């Protein structure tokens, strides 16, 4: 980490949400001149102040206000604490079906992402040469395609009489049913969008496993499967958890892909919230939906923070 005793990392994830990763400054040993004291103790805090302020003012404070607002209900001219908005949400079949639908899509998408990305990352970690280079570029390509362009491309590719159906009919396969405007299309779109980020995190994790470790194991007669199960898998659990939680957050709040490629009903929470707020003109209900979404996502966020923090602690202990 160089000379700075702490780090702030910004990652731009899909949906343009920015994820802050901050690790607190490591305590600096005593024996100080004022200048050292400034550089050692004060400067780091001054430098993390702007992002911290930004998060407090623009994220935590409004979120807290929202949560409080949804819990204070005006009934018969009397304001009081009540869960009635949440009870209404969970009693409404449509909103519950949308929440369940969102979970289903998220889990299905995550499972598919790992099925696709894990082998890809293993390949990119161990393969060398031109083809590996080309695959690397291809894998990163979705990073540079805006979501809305992707959606229209997928409509043309997967839709009825689209490219895929044409190719299939040339090789004699008929009876193609398009996934467009069905849940499957959302999964396809989101998986495609998430590939670069996931592969980047996983290959970075795999990169930390040194070649010598694997060679040692091989020398004592370990087969490929044993190496994978006993060495690679345990060492890659943490990058897997990071990729899981960050993808979960991005997908749970996805908007463009489910909006353009998915069915009119049921809807994912992102689309549903926008609809409730903008079209049904019910800001109160939209806020309740937002708080529920926020709470679910913050639990996964917690998992992420714990994973990263644990890593730091272990690293420091080993140093």
């Amino acid at each position: 980490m160089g000379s700075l005793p702490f780090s702030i990392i910004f990652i731009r994830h899909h949906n343009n949400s920015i994820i802050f990763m901050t690790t607190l400054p490591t305590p600096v040993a005593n024996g100080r001149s004022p200048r050292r004291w400034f550089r050692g103790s004060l400067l780091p805090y001054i430098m993390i102040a702007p992002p911290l302020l930004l998060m407090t003012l623009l994220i935590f404070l409004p979120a807290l206000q929202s949560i409080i607002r949804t819990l204070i209900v005006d009934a018969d001219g009397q304001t009081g604490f009540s869960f009635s908005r949440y009870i209404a949400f969970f009693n409404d079949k449509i909103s519950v079906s949308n929440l369940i639908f969102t979970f289903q899509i998220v889990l299905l998408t995550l499972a598919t992402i790992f099925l696709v990305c894990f082998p890809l990352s293993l390949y990119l970690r161990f393969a060398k040469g031109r083809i590996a280079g080309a695959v690397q570029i291809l894998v990163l390509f979705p990073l540079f395609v805006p979501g809305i362009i992707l959606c229209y491309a997928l409509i043309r590719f997967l839709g009825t009489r689209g490219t895929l159906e044409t190719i299939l009919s040339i090789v004699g396969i008929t009876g193609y049913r398009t996934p467009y405007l069905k849940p499957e299309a959302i999964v396809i779109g989101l998986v495609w969008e998430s590939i670069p980020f996931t592969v980047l995190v996983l290959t970075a994790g795999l990169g930390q496993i040194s070649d010598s470790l694997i060679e040692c194991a091989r020398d004592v007669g370990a087969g490929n499967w044993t190496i994978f199960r006993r060495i690679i898998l345990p060492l890659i659990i943490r990058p897997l958890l990071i990729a899981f939680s960050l993808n979960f957050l991005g997908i749970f709040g996805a908007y463009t892909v489910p909006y353009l490629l998915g069915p009119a009903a049921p809807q994912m929470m992102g689309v549903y919230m926008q609809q409730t707020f903008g079209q049904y003109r019910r800001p109160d209900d939209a806020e309740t939906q937002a708080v529920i979404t926020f709470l679910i996502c913050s639990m996964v966020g917690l998992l992420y923070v714990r994973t990263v923090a644990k890593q730091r602690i272990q690293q420091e202990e080993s140093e």
Partner: protein
Amino acid sequence: MRYLRLLLVSLALLLVTATAVAQDAPKEIFVYTDSDTNISDWWTNTLIPAFEAEHPEYKVVLTIVRGVGGGNDDIANRALAALETGDDPQVDYFETMNVDEAQEWVDKELFLEITEENVPNIANVIEATNRLPGEIPYRGSQVLLAYNSEFVAEDEVPTTYEELMQWIQDHPGQFVYNRPDKGGSGAAMVTRAIFEVTGKDPSLFVPGEADAALIDQFPKAWELLSSVHEDMYEQGAYPAGNTPVLELFANGSVNMITAWSDQALQAMNKGLLPEGAKLAQLQDLPFTGGYSYSAIPSNSTNQEGALALANFVLSPAIQESIVNEIGGFPAVAWSELPEELQTQFTDVITDTVPTWPGGDYGAAMVEGWYNNVATNIDPAS
């Protein structure tokens, strides 16, 4: 001394020629638009050259404020500020404007009243445009049925909403409309169902506070639309916009859709739709539509020029060009246009253009559709 006289004479001459030139120089009309590219292109390439050829005394300066802040609204507020201080608003003509959008504009009479005296051609504008005194309706668009005549026989084309419902049931998977909040062409399909079950009288629906008795009748429209839900494209798939619907029609996935007249006509002119693509309008009560209104600020410094421009825009030649070049509908009666054009558009010509008020009605319409038509879950059960 002689030189001085020469100098004075030549100076005087110069002054005289300069003023003469200045008098001949065309007077500028400042026009502002925030409409789409197809509209601003048509102004630049067609309308303005034609106007300047007929009125060499004027020069039109078109400023495009599309996507710049609040677009034309910002310029109108600037004009309002100028009205209060007595300054030159530096705008003479708004290509589109909702003259009653801000109460202040109405109270301070920001927009000039248009009458047959100052714009003679306003007399030809049809009733359906429902214009306010300050408005100059000049181009319209209406939702229509687009169908592929290769697969839909001429005598099969629905002429009433009932026939349309029947056609959809008889041809499962061949019709599609978009979600009502994602594009006007799908909304027209839904609002037309609401008109159908409330006595086919769009005049019942006026902007402002919604009539609860009318909203109570919406479930009948949901029943009607649900009865064809399974017969839609892919057994009830509704795309998220006008363009995706047009695209499904263009690639032959479906054979009939609802579409905006201008989008369908433009796509046809560009050869994007199947060769057999044709347009039709329901004859018992047409689908909804709307008009674009121009307006002239009352403090314009070239009011004469602006009024001449307004009159020119409503002339038969320009109204014809609106149909042919931008796929719009005329604001004047079709009977004012050449007969050839009337025959070409005979299936879609109507002087009835119902409007949908939106507001509370709109929210009830969209939510009702999502909860009752798009989903198979009954929220009440």
